[in-house]
């Protein structure tokens, strides 16, 4: 049987002696670690406003001051007064409204059609009906991909036109991504985004409201999904209220 010199009792003792830790060293090491952690936590706390504001920035694409001939209301709370101000600064400006299929509530007559609401609100803000053009198409009204494809089609028919598209602030990066994927580059380049802040919060204070936190979270989830999976809009099955009523009838 062979024996390894490094594992003899003498060598083990020597090795142990060579790495012997002075008394109090371990305690000091922990003290330094705790102090470093506290310093870091304090710095994060003191710098929380720029840090949290910075957390929202990757979601935002705001190409202001946006310059174009047309403006398309496509999202962002309280967008109509801001669109009206934009139009008042540019006398030749026109508003483009996208009109796809009716939603369930619109079809039932419970809600006015989207373009009717937009026309009414813009009219209230002093925009004349002559300055508004409606572009019709087919497809699910709530689907961003379908809307952007329709808008891309219209832009291809109007090669000299530059447009400004309003959007929610934390959804703007995702919209830019979809826009760039649905339109040829030369068409997409003619679209500028105007990321309108929510009336209750923006990137400088989103963490102070539950709605802001959820909006930021959903913004990242939506953006990540769009980057990873692209267009999944064809995967859609509509809820059928009449069929649901029949299942309730059968269950009785």
């Amino acid at each position: 049987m062979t024996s390894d010199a490094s594992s003899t009792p003498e060598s083990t003792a020597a090795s142990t002696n060579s790495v012997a830790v002075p008394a109090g060293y371990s305690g000091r090491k922990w003290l330094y670690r705790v102090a470093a952690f506290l310093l870091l936590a304090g710095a994060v706390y003191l710098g929380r406003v720029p840090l949290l504001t910075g957390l929202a920035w990757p979601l935002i694409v705001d190409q202001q001051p946006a310059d174009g001939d047309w403006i398309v209301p496509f999202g962002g709370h309280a967008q109509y007064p801001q669109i009206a101000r934009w139009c008042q600064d540019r006398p030749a400006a026109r508003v483009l409204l996208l009109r796809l299929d009716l939603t369930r509530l619109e079809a039932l007559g419970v809600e006015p059609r989207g373009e009717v609401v937009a026309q009414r609100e813009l009219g209230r803000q002093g925009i004349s009906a002559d300055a508004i053009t409606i572009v019709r198409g087919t497809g699910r009204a709530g689907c961003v991909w379908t809307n952007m494809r329709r808008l891309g089609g219209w832009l291809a028919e109007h090669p000299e036109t530059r447009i400004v598209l309003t959007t929610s602030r934390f959804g703007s990066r995702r919209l830019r991504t979809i826009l760039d994927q649905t339109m040829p580059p030369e068409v997409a380049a003619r679209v500028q985004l105007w990321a309108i802040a929510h009336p209750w919060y923006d990137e400088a204070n989103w963490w102070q409201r539950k709605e802001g936190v959820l909006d930021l979270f959903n913004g990242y989830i939506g953006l990540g999904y769009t980057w990873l999976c692209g267009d999944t809009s064809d995967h859609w099955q509509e809820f059928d209220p009449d069929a649901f009523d029949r299942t309730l009838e059968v269950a009785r």
Partner: protein
Amino acid sequence: MKPLSRRLKRLGWAALVSGLLCVGLFLARNALLPPVARFLDVSEPPLKSDYALVLGGGSDVRPFVAAGLYKTGWVKQVLLPKVKLSPEAEQGVMASEQETTARVLAARGVPAEAVRLLPGECASTADEAASLALLLDAEPNARVLIVTHTFHTRRARSIFHRALGARAGQVHFIAAPTDGYSADDWWQSDDGFGCYANEYMKLATFRLR
């Protein structure tokens, strides 16, 4: 063997195992992901009850389900919470959610006398549970079917049970389907993925409180 190369070798193995695990999870996603969604669904079949309470936040589906429950005789009345106004409703651009829900109920054949408002303004499911608790104080024997989306039933049940205490047995949860996706394919659409991710985040926050 030198420590660095040993570490690199370990790292290589860890990367290989992680990669294989990811590939395995990806290949098994159709079997693994539906249970993730079904965990959130604690809905029950309908029971003959006094009221259907339509929770706020889904006026394009939930009121249709409540109307169906009324029309097929499962409930005698429909309860509506007064949902806090959205910025659009505050500015008069859109109708309030309560108004929209009431209009859907009317359009689907529920008479106005069968619709009742819950007291107090509600900004969350917890507020709705507190409002229902007040109603159950006045009507201690009432049974209520709570209509909400499938993915919301687990968190809603926890919130209502916390608010109602001993009266928790008087409420039952009815699942309203989702537009566009179901528990079997929720990860295949951005709406579905966002919705379930959001709900898990809210559930975790609720459990931590």
